[in-house]
């Protein structure tokens, strides 16, 4: 029976070949061919697209995306760790509710959440109205790099809280008691026991925030205005406005490599190997 059921997967094998493997291959193909390649007879391989990307103009966009994503990740970590710690210490009856409240916004349309911040940060938005009411001067908040960072922190912080919480709640209570018995004070206990044991969660959190943050194009577009062009915006522009697919594909490949490298780092640290299928 078991051997025959395996054939159930074969239609899906065909499906993933057509809709997952083939498209990925096509992106790779476009990234190493010239624009003039039309079909098999005129195909012409080149490294030009990748070389083109390693110009200061584009490298700056890449570094800037990595920089903005890294800052957002650090802020998420600093805000998210205490939150995860508090939830893991909360009474068991409250824990699930607190956790649910942290994930709920994640299930709402990302555009809506980002759009909501436009109405708060705008020049005639809520915050500026509150400032005016308090007699403070208007602050230009929307369409700044700060707004982009804030949008990323807002959208991705649940991805930080969740894995850290999981790591903290799985911790062996006996180890904590042992630390107490051996005379560790609260500070030492946290630094020497709790923090190292929660590291797998911290690492997963960092990757899970950094990955979507570095590739986003909605948040910088809506909140950052034209000031912060990120690598996602560049890809979108190349495909939708410029129609330069070869170059766009090369950048997508760079993006995929960054993501897969981060994934492999995560897998190194993920001691429990719970991340589902291990990729690389």
């Amino acid at each position, binding site marked *: 029976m078991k051997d025959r059921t395996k054939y159930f997967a074969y239609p899906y094998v065909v499906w993933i070949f057509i809709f997952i493997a083939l498209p990925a291959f096509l992106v790779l193909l476009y990234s190493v061919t010239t624009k003039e390649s039309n079909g098999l007879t005129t195909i012409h391989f080149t490294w030009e697209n990748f070389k083109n990307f390693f110009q200061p103009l584009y490298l700056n966009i890449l570094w800037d995306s990595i920089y903005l994503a890294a800052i957002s990740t650090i802020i998420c970590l600093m805000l998210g760790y205490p939150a995860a710690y508090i939830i893991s210490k909360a009474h068991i009856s409250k824990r699930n509710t607190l956790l649910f409240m942290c994930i709920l916004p994640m299930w709402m349309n990302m555009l809506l959440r980002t*759009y909501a911040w436009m109405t708060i940060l705008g020049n005639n938005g809520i915050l500026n109205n509150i400032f005016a009411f308090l007699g403070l001067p208007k602050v230009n908040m929307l369409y700044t790099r700060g707004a982009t960072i804030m949008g990323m922190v*807002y959208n991705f912080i649940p991805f930080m809280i969740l894995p850290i919480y999981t790591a903290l709640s799985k911790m062996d209570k006996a180890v904590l008691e042992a630390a107490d018995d051996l005379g560790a004070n609260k500070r030492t206990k946290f630094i020497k026991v709790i923090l190292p044991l929660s590291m797998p969660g911290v690492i997963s959190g960092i990757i899970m925030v950094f990955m*979507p943050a570095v590739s986003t194009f909605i948040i910088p577009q809506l909140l950052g205005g034209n000031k912060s062009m990120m690598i996602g915006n560049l890809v979108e522009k190349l495909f939708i406005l410029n129609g330069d697919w070869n170059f766009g594909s090369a950048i997508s490949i760079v993006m995929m490599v960054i993501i897969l490298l981060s994934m492999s780092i995560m897998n190194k640290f993920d001691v429990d190997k719970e991340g589902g299928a291990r990729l690389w």
Partner: protein
Amino acid sequence: MVRKYLSKIYMGIIFIFLYAPIVVLAVFSFNESKSRGHWTGFSLRWYIELFHDQDIRMAFYYTITIAIITAIVSTILGTIAAIGINAMKGRQKALILNVNYLPVVNPDIVTGISLMILYISFNMDFGFNTMLISHIVFSIPYVILSILPKLKQLDVHMTEAAMDLGATPMYALRKVIIPEIKPGIVTGFLMAFTLSIDDFIISYFTKGEGVTNLSIIIYSMARRGVRPTINALSTIMLTVVLLLMILINKRANGHDKSKKTNRSEV
């Protein structure tokens, strides 16, 4: 004691940060004037305008139709695939699982453009079909990932017992396997539905002439300048997602509870 209050205040601030924008959107959808910062009075004006807006109505129709078809098709294909994958072994299984995992880990924008390139390479017309196929493509992996753990828990001897008692393999599948993995199937279905409703990036790259969904409308509206009708639309969408989430959560919790009682009985 002080620590306890500090924790409460800290969580309060985090939740204000997480929910303030959503509350603001919902409240200002009932605002009378176009202003986004000043409250001028209660009205349902934007809701009424919303229902008269032809573009939004079409986008709503496409969003819901695509979400329903996506959920049904990807649940059926995903369930069949999961049963097959579960019976596989070794490298073959690992390879399929890894390829299946690709749309989950890849940035949406890469999935979007790779599908766009695929459709253009095969000269497909962009529109309803391309968007629907794309949604099914990125939903099936999530359906499979929610069903596989249930299949792992399944007792192999049950199917064997059913067949020893004279059930055909198909009958055993229908009467034994499917009922056992049903919670996973339902979770997968709801996930596919919400993923499809929520998707923007992949739809954006695979949309066609005259076919948009609500996310794309919100995106173009937000870029052109903010219209309060989006607030009304957002509030409706948030309410729907909230109800769905509570439903999913109730199911998940109910399931955990039944598992816990089972264990205590043992």
